[in-house]
């Protein structure tokens, strides 16, 4: 290449070399880095696939409609997860109607109304960031101390569990909603205000609708995390043998992770198979919710 170029051009042009001058060290380091990051992906994937495969193989004999429609039983081959699924649905419902309005409201305040320079708002900001990282068992203790016993004395009922999970996901919902609101350019609010809208009108009719896909995505991901939580529910005293669906906020209840935990701790092999099948169901629900979240994000993504 370089010789032919110097032939056609004027002789004063210096010859150009396009071969690497940096040597094998650089290439080796480049290759090692690439290997490391590829390896990280593979480790993650292998663990996930192994988990799913193992559950599938073990739980396959019980993965049928009977499992979904039956109630727990002392006979492993007849035990099912209907009451667990309904318990989980009740809790999801409670989380949806409490954590999301409060979380979105808090996010709107933090993003659109709060004086970001004020020390108390900065403090709130830091607290929320930290709350998102608090282990779920701590929320279980909170629920036990203030909701189940103590202040409200609700007992180990579905409302207590729902509210506890609500506390758990609230910081995540706030953070996700704040990011979604922040992604809407300030020119949208400016435009609304310049038309004589009040700040609330501008936020509620322009900024908030524009950020709803982001808020929905974040909220769904938060709720799908809540569905898989067992630790706070165990602490709250979710019952493990419930042969009826919750009939109201004050019902005793069980939930999928609790049911799985219970079955795995039994000695009979049949319960282990049922647990594996229930794990598959739980995974499917979670994957389905995440798929909806991703679909929402791609469908309504706005480029400004």
């Amino acid at each position, binding site marked *: 290449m370089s010789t032919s170029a110097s032939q056609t051009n004027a002789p004063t042009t210096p010859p150009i070399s396009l071969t690497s001058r940096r040597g094998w060290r650089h290439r080796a380091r480049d290759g090692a880095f690439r290997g490391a990051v590829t390896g990280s992906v593979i480790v993650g994937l292998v663990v996930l696939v192994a988990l799913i495969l193992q559950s599938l193989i073990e739980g396959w004999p019980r993965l049928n409609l009977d499992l979904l429609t039956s109630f727990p039983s002392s006979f492993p081959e007849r035990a099912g997860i209907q009451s667990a699924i309904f318990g989980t649905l009740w809790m999801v419902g409670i989380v949806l109607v409490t954590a999301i309005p409060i979380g979105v409201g808090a996010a709107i305040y933090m993003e659109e109304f709060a*004086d*970001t*320079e004020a020390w108390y708002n900065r403090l709130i900001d830091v607290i929320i960031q930290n709350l998102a990282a608090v282990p779920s068992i701590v929320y279980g203790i909170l629920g036990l101390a203030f909701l189940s016993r103590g202040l409200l004395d609700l007992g180990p009922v579905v409302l207590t569990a729902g509210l506890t999970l609500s506390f758990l996901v609230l910081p995540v919902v706030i953070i996700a909603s704040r990011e979604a609101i922040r992604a809407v*350019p300030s*020119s*949208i609010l*400016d*435009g*609304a*205000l*310049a*038309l*004589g*809208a*009040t700040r609330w*009108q501008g936020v509620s*009719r*322009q900024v908030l*609708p*524009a950020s709803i896909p982001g808020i929905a995505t974040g909220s769904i991901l938060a709720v799908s995390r809540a569905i898989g939580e067992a630790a706070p529910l165990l602490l709250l005293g979710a019952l493990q043998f419930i042969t009826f669906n919750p009939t109201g906020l004050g019902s005793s209840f069980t939930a999928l992770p609790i049911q799985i935990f219970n079955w795995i701790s039994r000695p009979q092999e049949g319960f282990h198979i049922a647990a594996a099948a229930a794990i598959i169901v739980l995974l499917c629900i979670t994957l389905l919710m995440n798929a909806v979240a991703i679909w929402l994000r791609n469908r309504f993504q*706005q480029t400004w």
Partner: protein
Amino acid sequence: MKERSGRESRGAVVMDESDRRAEALFEAGPPAGTEADSVLQESARLAEIARERRRQAKNDAEAETVFELKDVSVTYGGSYAVQGVSMSIRKNEITALIGPSGCGKTTVLRCLNRTNDLIQGAKVHGQVLYHGIDLYGPKVEPVEVRRRIGMVFQKPNPFPKSIYDNIAFGPRVGGFKGNMDELVERSLRRAALWDEVKRDLKASAMALSGGQQQRLCIARCIAVEPDVILMDEPCSALDPVSTLRIEELMDELVSEYTIVIVTHNMQQAARVSDRTGFFTVAEGQDEKDHRIGILVEYDLTPTVFTNPSDSRTEAYVTGRFG
């Protein structure tokens, strides 16, 4: 002009075929010959004549004052952005604010509908009288002010909704009770956008071109029937043809509205405005040696551009700096 000479000198060294063609186009101006172009040129010529006539009529009669700025200064967090601006803006005129970057012309514009209130730490000193009422008086409600004094921004900022909803938003929040369809059509017609969008008013405003989006923003502004339209460099993100259309539109709108426009483009100020205020940056007027914007000269546009009384104005409008 400076930019062009730079282009040419670079062009001599590394000019390939496409560069050369672009250069030729640049010299020849917009491509002539197509029907749309000749229509545009013709309408531009007619607009120029109308403008001239209006200007002459205006010079004689003493027009009503809409804004009276008395020694207005704006501080951001205690330091002055612009200081000691006094000017009166008249009804049914286009007033252009020109000057180099950082001279405070946008800041002054934002004083006129209390948009500066939205910036943390901004404070307006002096008096801004709107039809004799102090805009910063204790009982004045900023929302009410902005309802009467609309604003079009530098970058088109349509709401991510349908064309119809973009127009209807302002009237809706303002409690408009009449026929919305009619108002939407009227506003779009006034902004010279109706023919392009009438087939699908439910289409997303984000799918429009930049020039159409900006006209939509003007239509949106007109829909609330303001008294004044403030424009903050409305054409800086647009191509020359779209710019011309906006300028024509301003020329039509000024018979009903008072327009104040901030522009970086001196030719634009010269083309469209009746009066021009020239701002510049004064070095170190306070103890901290801050750069502060000041109003140097404010006069009829032809005077500012052909016979300025201040040497700084002359240097700017003749292209010697800025």
